[in-house]
């Protein structure tokens, strides 16, 4: 259950990214998780509210974009989704491939609401 560590790191990253901004409430955090990142999306969804509790991102929704593995073939040059399990090129069957996608574990964006501007007093000159 290292997803709790991942969730805590995510909360830390989000707080760092938001530092210096006026934030009333964080609505949603979007992350990208590759199938070969070693992170279980369900476990991360479960751990996130626990890690976020008591922080400025508490109550935010976690949106997870899953990324399927893709390999780039050195033999035929194409990029394909390999037949899983394995990293064999789906186009030509070569195993001389490198993983192009699937290891992602990144914070994509943060949707938040700014505090409302203080109501202007009548006659107030800026």
């Amino acid at each position, binding site marked *: 259950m290292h997803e709790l560590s991942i969730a805590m790191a995510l909360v830390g990253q989000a707080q760092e990214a938001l530092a210096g901004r006026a934030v009333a409430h964080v609505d949603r955090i979007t992350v990208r998780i590759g199938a070969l990142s070693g992170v279980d999306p369900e476990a991360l969804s479960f751990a996130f509210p626990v890690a976020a509790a008591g922080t400025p991102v508490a109550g935010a929704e976690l949106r997870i974009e899953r990324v399927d593995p893709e390999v780039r073939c050195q033999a035929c040059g194409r990029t394909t989704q390999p037949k899983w399990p394995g990293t064999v090129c789906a186009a030509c069957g070569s195993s001389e491939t490198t993983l192009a996608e699937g290891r992602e574990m*990144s914070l*994509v964006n943060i949707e938040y609401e700014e505090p409302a501007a203080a109501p202007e007093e009548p006659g107030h000159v800026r």
Partner: protein
Amino acid sequence: MCDRCGCGAHDHGHGHGHAGEHRTLQVERAILAHNNAHAAENRLWLTQRGVVAINLISSPGTGKTRLLEQTLTALSGTIGCAVIAGDQETDRDAQRLRGRGAPVVQIETGSACHLDAVRVGDVLREVVRPDTRLLFIENVGNLVCPAAFDLGETLKIALLSVTEGEDKPLKYPALFLNASAAVITKTDLIPHLEWDREACLAALRTAHPGLRILQLSARTGEGMEAWLEFLKGLAGR
């Protein structure tokens, strides 16, 4: 009218300010950026000292400690070795590994199921000596979690014992894909098991085509020579 605050709006959040602008902040940053930065520091520090760091990852009970016991004894006096042993509790592994010519530091991770780059970085200066060429990092026994955390190692080695069956590489592909080599351990037990060597090798090659595979028994010594040669090669000897 909003029934919570009495204002004229219908669609604003509550308990957190009032009808502010909604914004999207693009970040595009690794979730583990903090760990990765420490891993990069560790890697640089180790590289500058000519130390090859090996992150050993396997299930509990695969025989990491037993293999290290035999390895340290065999390399003592020829290649400077050091060990960081990670476990959730106890320093039993460190006790077993001491007295074999290599400094050993135990990290107790508590509830954490993996080592991270910060904890490893904290003990590097303690465990690495001027003559250290190989640093073994015995990760917490777990096939899933340690694979996600870069420690700043030179390479990851996945261990798999014959008692675990043949298909672990297909069930836990992230580790085997990221490993530079796999070691099949406890081969002395094969006669007692219905373990299919070809099926296991095929599973490893499916998960990671071209993966370097070693097979050994630390108990009988079978295959240990090839393992030690592999390590000497890493250490540039």
